[in-house]
């Protein structure tokens, strides 16, 4: 891993995205002080992540990517056990979470399906009072319904002004909650910023129908993938937001009948950054 620069302020959600094996979990283990960095420093709450690990962990709640829990304990026992390891107790909030996730806590961990086991871990993670929540691939194995509940709980935490590090490879899930996004590939942060900032770098898809033929359109700087569509005076092209203004001025002048601008989704950004990175 090299050139990892991450900063997370309180009350902020950082989406940490990257393909499998990019170094997401390794970063998290470094933050949790389970691995020692060979160079550089990691400060969590102003303390060194490795030497002050125990002190820092009082204020952290973490869920790992692949959850395995003691097979002969029930879900409820596991939640209480994990809370106790953080010097905390089963509270009303825990009960509420169990109901919200619709979790049967009387079953043993070995009898849970992957999704239900994930729910056990999620309930424990959410009900732990902490300042920093770290989720590593939290929604793997969850059905859409529970995923929705997860997103809701995530926003609740955000409203309580908690910091959240959300490491994930499913981008649509980051889009909803994240304030800032960092893209990592092969152990290197290749881009970071707000979603809007990232979108400005990538191109938006524009489809426009004009009143008169727009023969100058293809000549504008920044217009790529220019195509004439089937219906008359209809054009499709992609353009970066920064280059949009002169094009729009031109289009307004000749008269717009119909216009749609599709902002790039995270998935497109994601692919774009990987391609850019691989070309280097």
């Amino acid at each position, binding site marked *: 891993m090299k050139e990892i620069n991450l900063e997370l302020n309180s009350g902020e959600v950082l989406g940490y995205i990257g393909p499998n094996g990019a170094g997401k979990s390794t970063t998290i283990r470094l933050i*949790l002080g389970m691995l020692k960095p060979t160079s550089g420093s990691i400060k969590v709450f102003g303390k060194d992540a490795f030497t002050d690990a*125990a002190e820092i962990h009082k204020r952290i709640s973490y869920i790992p990517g692949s959850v395995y829990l*003691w097979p002969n304990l029930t879900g409820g026992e596991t939640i209480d056990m*994990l809370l106790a390891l*953080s010097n905390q107790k089963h509270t009303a909030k825990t009960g509420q979470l169990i109901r919200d996730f619709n979790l049967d806590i009387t079953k043993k961990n070995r009898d849970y399906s992957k999704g239900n086991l994930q729910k056990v871990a999620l309930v424990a993670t959410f009900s732990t009072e902490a300042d920093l929540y770290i989720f590593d691939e939290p929604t793997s194995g969850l059905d859409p319904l529970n995923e929705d509940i997860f997103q809701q709980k995530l926003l609740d935490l955000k409203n309580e002004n908690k910091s959240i590090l959300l490491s994930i490879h499913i981008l649509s899930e980051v889009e909803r909650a994240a304030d800032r996004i960092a893209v990592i590939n092969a152990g290197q942060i290749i881009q970071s910023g707000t979603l809007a900032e990232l979108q400005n770098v990538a191109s938006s898809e524009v489809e426009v129908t004009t009143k008169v033929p727009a023969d100058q359109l293809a000549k504008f700087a920044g217009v790529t993938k220019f195509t004439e569509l089937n219906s008359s005076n209809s054009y499709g092209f992609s353009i970066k937001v920064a280059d949009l203004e002169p094009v729009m001025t031109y289009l307004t002048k000749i008269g717009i009948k119909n216009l749609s601008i599709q902002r790039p989704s995270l998935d497109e950004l994601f692919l774009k950054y990987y391609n850019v990175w691989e070309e280097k």
Partner: protein
Amino acid sequence: MNHFSKTFFLTRFYLRKDWVTLVSWLALILLMTVGVAAIYPSVYPNLNNRIAIINTLKLPSMRAILGPLQNSTTSISNIFVSELSLWMMLLAGIFAIILANGNTRKQEDNGLLEIMQARCVGRFAPLLATFNELILINGLTTILIGSGLNILNLTGSNGAGNWLFASLIGVAGLLFGSLTILLA
């Protein structure tokens, strides 16, 4: 908060988590030692039987398996100790290795250690808790075997000898378990 925090909590937790294994283990080793000791007088009922087995134990091949016979008295307790100490130490060792491995190496491999250590658990606490568990279970083994043998009071046995045999098994378990922790 330090590197050892939650050690005792984890020790208690491990004991509760492993209680079925621990209890069955205790039952098994008690059956194999105190139980066998209880039926030995009927296995070797008279002097001729006992002389025969002592002579067998003196054979080079038996020496190779069980080690040299410490003395030639034909008491039941002498035969018992000569025949059983090695096997029981091995048994205790195997059990300790399984137990220690399950709470160290295995927990690390399947990610449980990560979940625990992300919470307020000291870096060395899980390891030390496993060690505590080993001390407790082997201590209990020693006490139970020792008391059992003292109650049976085989001919030729005495308190010191009984406790020595029991400690031998307990310490063997502890030794193998500790080695596992060291290597895990």
